[in-house]
């Protein structure tokens, strides 16, 4: 026979287990029926100064919490292919006010803010503001100048300002030597594929952060595709001017232009020629940052990252 004490223990333990399981299941159900926006988009305190005061001197820890929140926010929105990132800039502003020396918040923050949706928030002006704030508080960090120049170059095609920022950064003690080269390159060959390749290669080589390196690899792959497609498209035009018609296929272009075999993309897949003479990539989803070689009306899939070029 079970004595009274044991019986109470068994009943209490059973109640505990059942109630715990029930509360977990209920919470999961509640999460399903709650509107998602109310869970993700709420930023209860918008004022960076207010958050700083509320942290009672523990700003560093609070900045880490806000930075993690920023990354989670961006990650969720990016994964959902969202076209609005309303809370991104305020989150970054709070993070960097709490800890103006938190370098990852500037480096990644600018690359979250600047690119057009769905790749980013499409707010290059706020990215520039963020980077300038970062430079103001960390004037000896040449990478911040580099990232700012990069925003001017890639998102705004503002080569004059990009050159000026690279020049400023090149004067920082221990700045990477390519900052000076970038400044000169911006002034003379800003729109070239060579310049873009130099920038992304420099990004790849100068960063230890795997996400930044992966992003650079994807851009380098995309640049090669863009350059190949541009060159092949020029050959198609040239063929048309000589023969008065479009080539019947890529094979005819190869023969006519005496190319060394059918051109292939970085993955080894052959470029294709559409009926209306457009050079196309076989699998555009494998090159998330290409600007050329996609079929009309193409909607890009979420980026897939490759580890080597």
């Amino acid at each position, binding site marked *: 026979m079970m004595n009274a004490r044991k019986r109470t223990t068994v009943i209490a333990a059973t109640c505990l287990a059942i109630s715990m399981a029930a509360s977990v299941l209920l919470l999961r159900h509640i999460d399903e029926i709650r509107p998602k926006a109310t869970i993700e988009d709420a930023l209860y305190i918008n004022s960076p100064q207010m958050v700083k*005061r509320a942290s009672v001197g*523990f700003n560093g820890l609070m900045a*880490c919490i806000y930075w993690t929140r920023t990354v989670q926010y961006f990650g969720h929105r990016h994964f959902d292919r969202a076209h609005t990132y309303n809370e991104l800039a305020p989150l970054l502003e709070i993070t960097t006010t709490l800890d103006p*020396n*938190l370098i*990852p918040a500037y480096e*990644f923050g600018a690359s979250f803010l600047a690119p057009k949706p769905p790749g980013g928030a499409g707010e290059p002006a706020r990215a520039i503001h963020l980077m300038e704030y970062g430079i103001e508080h960390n004037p000896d960090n040449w990478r911040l100048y580099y990232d700012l120049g990069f925003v001017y170059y890639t998102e705004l095609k503002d080569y004059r300002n990009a050159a000026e920022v690279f020049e400023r950064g090149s004067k920082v003690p221990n700045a990477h030597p390519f900052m000076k080269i970038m400044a000169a390159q911006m002034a003379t060959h800003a729109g070239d594929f060579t310049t873009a390749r130099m920038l992304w290669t420099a990004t790849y080589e100068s960063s230890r*952060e795997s*996400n930044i390196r992966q992003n650079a690899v994807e851009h380098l792959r995309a640049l090669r595709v863009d350059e190949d497609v541009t060159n092949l498209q020029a050959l198609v035009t040239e063929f048309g001017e000589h023969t008065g018609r479009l080539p019947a296929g890529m094979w005819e272009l190869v023969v006519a232009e005496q190319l060394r075999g059918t051109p292939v993309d970085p993955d080894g897949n052959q470029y294709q020629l559409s009926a209306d003479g457009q050079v196309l990539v076989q699998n555009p989803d494998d090159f998330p940052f290409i600007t050329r070689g996609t079929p009309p009306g193409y909607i890009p899939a979420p980026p897939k990252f490759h580890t080597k070029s």
Partner: protein
Amino acid sequence: MSPRIVHIAANTFREAVRDRVLYNLIAFALLLSGAAIFVGQISIDIERLVVINLGLTAVSLFGVVIAIFIGIGLVSKEIEKRTLYTVLSRPVRRWEFIVGKFFGLAGTLVVNTFFMAIGVFGALLYVAHKFSKPDALILVALYFIVLEFLIICSLALLFSSFSSPLLSAVFAFSLFVIGSFADDLRGFASLAHGMTRWLATAAAYLVPNFSALNVISAVAHQQPLTSQLILNNTLYALFYTTVALSGAVLIFERRNLK
């Protein structure tokens, strides 16, 4: 130091250990190891910063809570249990009782901080795989945290010497919060005029300045700390602690214990 103070301090330490105060180390270890493992997966490039910021913040907050909640009961509990009368009936002066209690509580916090520091360095080694020279600055931040504890212990004892435990807790915690904003208070004083300016300036210098002792962010970013700052903070903490302890002794000496 008189052997009577040492005995009282040792008993206070023993009592704190018996009260399972050091159990907070388990919560601290769980918090830190959890952060070290999970932050790398949910954030970018801040694993080291989180371990240092979270570790030192936890050391500070856990210690402040212990200092306040044990400190406020040091005198009142002895009166309530009537053990104070047994102590004071022996050749023990009232000031020796207060000072002994202070050293006992401070010793408890130093031991607690020592174990937590081992946890912080362990977690740092886990995320960074090696120590670098600037990591030694963490020791300075820990030292400043201990100085902060000394001030809070003495304040808790001061309030405990004339007030009820609940009110003492409220006073001590309020001073901790106000002291964290001491720099802002000084900034406010500089903006004010006339009497307000005078009062705000007086208040800014009267409350303990904990913001000067908080170098967690600077240490996390490996920013150097001058020996001048270390020396000045040490002297400031010692003087302020002496002020609060002297106040506690003065009040307790005149307190009617009948």
